[in-house]
């Protein structure tokens, strides 16, 4: 046995050992993740209710989806979650990280406080927020508004405010992660850059514009992509907070993933749901590719 093993070069031995260790996760990923993903492409060309016979219908699922007005509304909702949620959350996270980095006293404690929502179940938090949004005398927000004599707001019950009311806890939940990554990014910038700039007489704004932000570009790109994907896949908060768990009122808060869920498990249109999944997959793929391209330009 030892003789046989020694026939390989050192490099080959290393490769064999490495692949042995990689085998388990590889098998797992192929059977649990990649296979169903590719299966979804196939199912998206079927008419199938999960129990009955499968019927191949070609691209009909896609045609129906694109002809469906609701789909376009839901797609736009999903984009809105990302388009507003990402910049707002990044801006808040950066401002907090920037100032948190300046203080030593209580730094770790405050950072932990910001991080806790990230560790908490989205559903539990969404329930609490749902309660915040209730009308008087239960809801916190409306109670606070009443102190200042501001009219009551419908929040979750409004077609214009609903989406943003659901987005708020999603932004809040992701802040901890973004702040921690931002602080790590800021701390990775060599101190001497700031010291040199300080001696050179640069003000806070020039240092921020010419040193901190450019140095954080990889961090910003990474967080943008991760949170964009996060917001495009939003589900828990909407399912928990929206009226009848259906993305209401009037579908105004419904994102793609909730629509997929409804097709699959309320209406048992597995083919339609799979087609929608493929569409979401392609959107996420494009976002990731753009990230790779931006990162490469860095170097």
């Amino acid at each position, binding site marked *: 046995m030892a003789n046989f093993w020694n026939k390989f070069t050192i490099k080959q031995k290393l490769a064999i050992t490495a692949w042995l260790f990689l085998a388990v996760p590889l098998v797992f990923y192929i059977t649990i993740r990649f296979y169903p993903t590719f299966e979804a492409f196939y199912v998206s060309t079927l008419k199938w209710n999960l129990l009955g016979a499968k019927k191949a219908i070609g691209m009909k699922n896609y045609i129906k989806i694109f002809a469906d007005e609701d789909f376009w509304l839901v797609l736009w909702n999903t984009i809105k979650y990302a388009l507003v949620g990402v910049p707002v959350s990044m801006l808040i996270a950066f401002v907090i990280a920037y100032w948190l980095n300046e203080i030593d006293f209580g730094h770790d404690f405050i950072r932990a406080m910001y991080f806790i929502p990230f560790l908490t179940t989205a559903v539990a938090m969404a329930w609490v927020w749902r309660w915040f949004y209730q009308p008087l005398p239960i809801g916190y927000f409306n109670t606070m508004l009443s102190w200042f004599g501001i009219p009551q707001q419908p929040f979750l019950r409004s077609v214009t405010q609903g989406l943003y009311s659901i987005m708020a806890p999603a932004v809040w939940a992701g802040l901890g992660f973004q702040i921690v990554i931002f602080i790590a990014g800021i701390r990775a910038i060599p101190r001497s850059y700031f010291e040199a700039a*300080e*001696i050179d007489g640069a003000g806070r704004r*020039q240092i921020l514009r010419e040193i901190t932000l450019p140095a954080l*570009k990889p961090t910003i790109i990474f967080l943008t992509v991760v949170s964009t994907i996060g917001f495009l896949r939003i589900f828990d908060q909407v399912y928990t907070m929206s009226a009848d768990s259906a993305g209401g009122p009037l579908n105004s808060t419904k994102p793609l993933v909730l629509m997929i869920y409804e097709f699959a498990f309320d209406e048992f249109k597995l083919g339609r749901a799979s087609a929608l999944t493929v569409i979401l997959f392609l959107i996420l793929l494009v976002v990731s590719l753009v990230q790779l391209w931006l990162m490469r330009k860095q170097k």
Partner: protein
Amino acid sequence: MAEVTLDGVRKLFGSVTAVEDFTLSIGNGEFVVFVGPSGCGKSTTLRMLAGLEDVSSGSISIDGRAVNNIHPKDRDIAMVFQNYALYPHLNVYDNMSFGLRAKRLPRSEIESRTHDAAEILGLGDLLKRRPGELSGGQKQRVAMGRAIVRQPKVFLFDEPLSNLDAKLRHKMRAEMKLLHQRVQTTTVYVTHDQVEAMTLADRIVIMNEGRIEQVGTPDEVYKQPASQFVASFIGSPAMNFATGMISNSSRQTILETHSGVDIGLASSHVVQGRQVHLGFRPEHMQLADVAKPPKGHISISGDITVVEPMGHETVLTCDGGFGEIVGKYEGDKHFRPGESVYFHIRTDRLHYFDLETGIRI
């Protein structure tokens, strides 16, 4: 250009004293080098001068103005960092002009000053490059350029050459000296390399454990080291020491070393019975064929343990009986480990330091 005064400056980090009672007056246009082993407080002192560290007590003034509570940017200083601190996403021109833009100078002046500095440093062709595309020496020059364009009252250098390889360091050292001769700006330079200190400085400040050991010209610290620490720090290979008591034996003064070997001293200004370190430099040891020294010399013998040929000279490490001694000689003579050699040393080149305090006698 300006004078810089540090008066009783002290720096505490928690309960640890980093710098203690640092008093020094730096003249207009002078090039002063702080040198010492790592942790001796030299960089901390420089950073206090720059305003990057608070002063625990004492006062610092630049050009007659107390700057203890003045922000770094208002001290009119420029600093070059060990890692250069070039902003990686800005090109050479933007790096060099950073401070001028911070000051909101008119564009034309920024341009002319930056180009002048680039000219002096031979960076004219590199202005559009990013730091990542530059060699170590070029980065070093850009860092100096960023300081020069500011036309500050004082230049501060924090180990600027220690990231370069030996050859380049030598070259940049010469360039730095040339630059100072040209711009004549008061300069404070921190290094742990005694060769850099000796070659660059008008005056050297040798520090150890937060205190000044000696302030003097390179010549003074080499020829008249104020303490055993200075004597062992300045010079390469380092000074040899024999430890013992001065005493008298059959008409001549000797050093009774603690290991039992006696060294004949011919004469000495040190009183008998005093415990001392006797110091002598490798380059002052003349190789001899006989034990008996000529008039005005002492003789040391040793058994060779290591021979290090350097080409133009050879360094011999020997066991002198009282400890290790290092000597060197020029010439073609070849030695092998195990052979015995004699060295003669002029008595006026011997250094005596008190055993307890290390202070020069």
